[in-house]
């Protein structure tokens, strides 16, 4: 099994979740209120009340195939709006 970590602006959350649903992932977890810095942007806590919004951190445990299936859609979304995606190994307990 794989673990996919996605971090991006909460404004894109609906779009990303739609992508995940389309690929029929077995599940996902969302943690909002994340802040951070990427190559270009800084996201601070005060953006939560402005129109910009803070980040969301999404974790998906699923098979490699599903990731391959979603790859292009997710990458398109993240390259347009920013955000990062990393894969690592994970074994069910």
């Amino acid at each position, binding site marked *: 099994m794989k673990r996919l970590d996605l971090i991006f602006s909460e*404004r894109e959350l609906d779009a990303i979740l739609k992508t995940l649903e389309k690929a029929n992932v077995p599940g996902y977890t969302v943690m909002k209120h994340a802040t951070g810095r990427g190559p*270009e942007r800084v996201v601070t806590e*005060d953006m*939560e*009340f*402005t*129109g*910009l*919004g803070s980040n969301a951190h999404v974790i998906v445990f699923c098979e490699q195939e599903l990731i391959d299936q979603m790859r292009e859609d997710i990458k398109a979304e993240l390259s347009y709006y*920013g955000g990062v995606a990393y894969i690592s190994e994970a074994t069910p307990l």
Partner: protein
Amino acid sequence: MEVNPIIQNVFAPPVLFFLIGAISVFFKSDLEIPAPLPKLFSLYLLLAIGFRGGIEIQKSGFTDQVLPTLSAAILMSLIIPLIGFVILRYKFNVFNSAAIAAAYGSISAVTFISAESFLESQNIDFDGFMVGALALMESPAIIVGLLLVKFAAPKNRPNSRKMHLSAILHESILNGSVYLLLSSLIIGFLIASTNPSGIEKMEPFTKDLFYGAECFFLLDMGIVAAQRLPSLKKAGSFLIAFAIFMPIFNSLIGVFVAKLLTLGPGNALLFVVLCASASYLAVPAAMRMTVPEAKSSYYISTTLGLTFPFNIVLGIPIYMSLVNKVIPLSPL
């Protein structure tokens, strides 16, 4: 007026709380108001200002001044972004220019609220329908900004997505803060028309509490504004100058339009403040979604870090003097 109006403005609770927020950052105090508490106050202020505005509009009725003023307000929020765009294009690409220009064409509700508090402390009358102008000036500026991108952007816009008119309308009118303000205004109007006893029961929440909540929120805004200053330095001196001179320039246009509209001094100040203030709620939300090529730190740091504090602390009393000079006190 004997005392310097700037000094008088600074010694009002909202401005003082704003200042201690900002000072806490300079002294590296660990004072902080954690998320989502600022959002609570922001939502509350929009709801309350809308609700009270709706009641006032219903009470005062549609006088002769209402329609011309609202039309002029919309016009201003269409023209100001165009002027801003032309200026900004000297230094910035289309995306950044359009996004920043839209922010300055749109308005800041909290700046408007502060101007109302200032007028109240000076015992100067103003009309409820100016909240209507507030509500109507958010969207047009966004629409202009997005149309500027649509038509001025290079045809080979990288990673381009089609920007449908429906998306533009959606971002400009259904933005959370625009929607809450507008719909609270409508509720206030409806309640005042059909069920005036409901007003009294709302007042402890929407009216009595308002001033204190404004102070609490401005404490946070002081922290936020001061934290934005360092990233402003990175933005460069052109943008810093723009963030101060654009509001002053807009206030000058505003005051003459107000004179043409024959607004009284109170309404005139509010009109000028609407022109001079810049949005950090609705516009950033819309630009982030539809023009991700624009650097968000440009439009958020200028509006929050410089234009907002300038208006709150110095701008409002300066605009008041301007109004007093340009608009002779008619014997009403």
